[in-house]
């Protein structure tokens, strides 16, 4: 059986368009130092470091753990680099947790980052290779048709995405680390923003950010050594399926449903909307909130948008199941770190340490990440209590 483990320290950087004041090492270091300070620990207390980020081409540093060894105090320690596309922040947290849950390590540091502003490699996601169709329309070009199909199936009104875009930016305005600070955003403003990939408008899409996120994960017997309340890891799950295959359900991917079922089973969750106090879910395009509400079992199929429109996912509207209180990916998106920010923000909630975006008395929270063509999923459930 898995050994009990908990998050005892969390560190993040400010998320910004461009962190021009630090090197790549300086950026990851900042998050790592913040996590160690939060955990009341020093470099010598760490047994291993697990880092994650999206493709190396974003920074043009091949296998960057090689160069980042010294910034992360790793000389003489084990170091592992995870890469599972957009879900990598989540998978990295899960791999880090497995170091402790396996009983092989007592305390690990995990860091994810992206310093995307350094490159023009945004489009490295689909570099033009010979013999391929050069139809590089970016991530939005891939996901827009899937969103359109969701709208058709569910009959959702056109403004559901607008509602989410406003809600997450209002949440983000409560979070001083958030990249976008838009406390006065209005639905009209979102609706009037440029249509990028119909039906995705500019303000319905995530920004591109620099930033890093780190956590310290400790074994049960060492949790007390850190001063702040722990976030106990109550379940971890990952699922993958191919990008494309005949008959693939792209709107409501089976990999997501299976992954959620697995993590809920471990955490003893039977009704996610009721049992969880809040969720940090990877929503890079606003319409993915209603889609994931269904995929993750918070609403019946075809009715996720009703939950969104009712205000159930809004902190400002006093919703019963707030989603993305930190502002989510729609407010900050350092790609390689985005998944881990979801996991860390879920942990902040159950530690009662989420500042102005704290959900009152949160005891159980979901962290979620996805990547590739919505084909790689990683999730964890963290709690204020061990069980």
């Amino acid at each position, binding site marked *: 059986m898995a050994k009990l483990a908990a998050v005892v320290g969390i560190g993040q950087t400010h998320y910004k368009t461009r962190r*021009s*004041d630090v090197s790549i090492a300086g950026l990851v270091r900042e998050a790592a130092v913040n996590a160690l300070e939060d955990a009341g620990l020093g470099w010598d207390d760490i047994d291993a470091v697990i880092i994650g980020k999206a493709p190396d081409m974003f920074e*043009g540093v091949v296998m960057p753990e090689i160069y980042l060894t010294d910034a992360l105090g790793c000389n003489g320690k084990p170091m592992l680099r995870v890469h599972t596309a957009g879900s990598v922040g989540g998978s990295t947290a899960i791999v880090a947790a497995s170091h402790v849950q396996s009983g092989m390590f007592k305390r690990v540091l995990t860091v994810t980052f992206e310093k995307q502003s350094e490159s*023009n490699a945004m*489009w490295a996601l689909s570099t*033009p*290779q*010979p*013999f*391929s*169709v*050069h*139809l*590089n*329309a*970016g991530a*939005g*070009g*891939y996901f*827009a*048709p*899937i969103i*359109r*199909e969701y709208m*058709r199936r569910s009959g959702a009104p056109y403004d559901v995405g607008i509602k989410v875009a406003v809600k997450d930016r209002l949440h983000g305005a409560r979070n001083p680390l958030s990249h976008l600070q838009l406390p006065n955003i209005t639905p009209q403003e979102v609706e009037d923003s*440029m*249509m*990028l*990939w*119909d*039906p*995705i408008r500019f303000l319905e899409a995530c920004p591109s950010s620099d930033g890093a996120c780190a956590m310290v994960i400790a074994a049960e017997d060492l949790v007390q050594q850190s001063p702040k309340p722990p976030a106990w890891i109550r379940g971890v799950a990952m699922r993958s399926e*191919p*990008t*494309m*295959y*005949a*008959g*693939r359900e792209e709107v409501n991917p089976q990999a997501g449903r299976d992954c959620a079922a697995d993590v809920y089973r471990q955490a003893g969750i039977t009704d996610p909307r009721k049992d969880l106090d809040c969720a940090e879910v990877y929503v890079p395009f606003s319409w993915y909130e209603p889609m994931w509400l269904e995929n993750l079992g918070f609403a019946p199929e075809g009715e996720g948008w009703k939950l969104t429109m009712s205000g159930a996912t809004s902190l400002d509207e006093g919703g019963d199941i707030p989603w993305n209180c930190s502002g989510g990916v729609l407010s900050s998106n350092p790609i390689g770190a985005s998944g881990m920010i979801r996991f860390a923000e879920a942990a902040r909630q159950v530690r009662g340490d989420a500042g102005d975006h704290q959900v009152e008395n949160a005891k159980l929270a979901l962290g979620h990440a996805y990547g590739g063509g919505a084909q790689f999923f990683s999730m964890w459930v963290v709690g204020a209590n061990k069980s």
Partner: protein
Amino acid sequence: MSEDTAAVTRIETPIYLKYNFTAGSAPARFLARIREGVLTGQRCPRCANVYIPPRGSCPACGVATEEEVVLPDKGTVQSFTVVAIPIPNNPIKPPFVIANLVLDGANLSFIHLMSECENSEVRIGQRVQAVWKPSSEWTHAMDNIRYFKSIDEPDVPIEKIGKLPLSGWEG
């Protein structure tokens, strides 16, 4: 020596690497035929689904696809988006339609351009046909099809998209 006296805070480090790309065996067979204007999919020996362009395996079953199936250049819109932003290194001017299209006899869509249609009239289930470049310009590339255009055939019901026979819709 530079006259600049401000501290150095950023440097330009371009990274250009040369590679030689070799197409995989399954894609190479597909590309060799499209050079002659023929669209060939590959059928999974296990689930019988037909994939185009083929990538060497049935992703669902994880087995090699070998049997080749010549497909018509007619198909159906599975979904689409109207792209309003210019794409770097892409000569196509916005707004343009890119669609997930599935050819008759195939079971998986691919992304391609749509044109010769009103962007506002593009719809799921719409029937389309390839508009090819002049044969003198054909190479080993899907780009031999310049785009797909709308054709005058009744729309395909949602549940039939991706499941049509080679003979097409009501064909």
